[in-house]
């Protein structure tokens, strides 16, 4: 039976945490842990989810959870998996939750190494498109044009000059057993992917887009809606990589308005029509590639 809200484990494993109201990252962690169950061993590097989950003496995880070094999410997962296996424990899921900075910038070599060794771990990147925990600094997953505290929007330079790093395809290029993209706006799709990853041996990677109301400049009740809209307007896509092939899971019939998506967020409100045209063109180019290479 397909996993859904009705069949999902009713126990909460990430509860009472101190994330901002409407946090997309905490929603991704909560749902993933409900799918994986109480035998999940979570590894969290420095970032929002460790900052909000472990406030001594409070511990908001109902399963085993540990904080790793910023760069070492994947290497600690390797250690957790090897350690439990050495003790003869087989019924567990080593899962890591790192942000976009902790994955695409700081933790990339550890992740690449773990995929190379094909360790039996699940790595989930909750992508809120900047270093939100330290006060919204640009990461390599911050999209073009976004205003952050290190890429301010002024008269001459309007926000981030660089485009978002294509981490999903970078991970897939390792020949990983399973990789996927997801969005907190489409949780049924995300749950299915975590459930699938649970039963695959080897390294698994899921990249979930998780809006941050504080950093994106949307109100707290818009998180899920904006995470849906980014998929509907084509600036994000839901796909999987398995057995050397890319599969597109969600094909929008027609894209919704890119400028409507951008203009509702204060991090993009400075963008000119020309900037939006650049973003639209890069979207169309990306989709040309997707239609050609994804099943």
């Amino acid at each position: 039976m397909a996993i859904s809200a009705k069949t999902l484990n009713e126990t909460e494993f990430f509860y009472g945490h101190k994330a901002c109201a409407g946090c997309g990252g905490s929603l991704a962690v909560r749902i993933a842990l409900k799918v994986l169950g109480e035998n999940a061993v979570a590894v969290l590097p420095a970032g929002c989810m460790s900052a909000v989950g472990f406030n001594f003496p409070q511990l908001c995880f109902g399963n085993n959870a540990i904080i790793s070094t910023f760069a070492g999410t994947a290497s600690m997962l390797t250690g957790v998996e090897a350690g439990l296996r050495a003790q003869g424990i087989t019924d567990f899921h080593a899962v890591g939750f790192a942000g976009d900075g902790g994955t695409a910038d700081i933790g990339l070599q550890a992740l690449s190494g773990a995929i190379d060794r094909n360790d039996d771990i699940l790595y989930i990147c909750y992508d809120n498109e900047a270093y939100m925990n330290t006060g919204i600094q640009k990461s390599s997953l911050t999209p073009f044009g976004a205003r952050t505290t290190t890429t301010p929007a002024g008269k001459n330079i309007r926000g981030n000059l660089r485009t978002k790093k294509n981490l999903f395809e970078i991970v897939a290029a390792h020949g990983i057993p399973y990789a996927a993209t997801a969005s907190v706006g489409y949780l049924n799709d995300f749950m299915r992917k975590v459930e699938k990853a649970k039963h695959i041996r080897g390294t698994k990677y899921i990249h979930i887009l998780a809006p941050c109301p504080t950093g994106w400049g949307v109100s707290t009740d818009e998180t899920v809606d904006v995470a849906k809209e980014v998929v509907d307007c084509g600036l994000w896509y839901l796909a999987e990589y398995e057995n050397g092939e890319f599969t597109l899971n969600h094909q929008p019939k027609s894209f919704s308005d890119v400028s409507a998506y951008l203009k509702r967020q204060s991090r993009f409100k400075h963008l000119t029509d020309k900037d939006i045209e650049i973003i639209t063109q890069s979207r169309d180019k990306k989709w040309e590639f997707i239609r050609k290479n994804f099943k």
Partner: protein
Amino acid sequence: MKPYLRDFIPVSFADIPEATAYEAGYLVTKNAGWRNVRPVIDAQKCVGCLNCYLYCPDGVIYRDGSKVAIDYDFCKGCGICRNICKLNAITMEAEK
């Protein structure tokens, strides 16, 4: 195991465990004071589709018979549940 509020809250050095944490799921504070508005479910309109339960970032909406209920100790009042409800069964009311 679902994390839950404990009776014992450490106040002195002697109370602190000889480890970096207490056991899993050890909660000592509520989040109720964070919110200005609270979601209220209209049981007449609710059909138990569980969308609000699924999309709550804090997991404070739980299944209650064929419907849902809210743990107000930990709700932060973000309003995602109100927006996700197709039947408009949830309204946000000001905290007094």
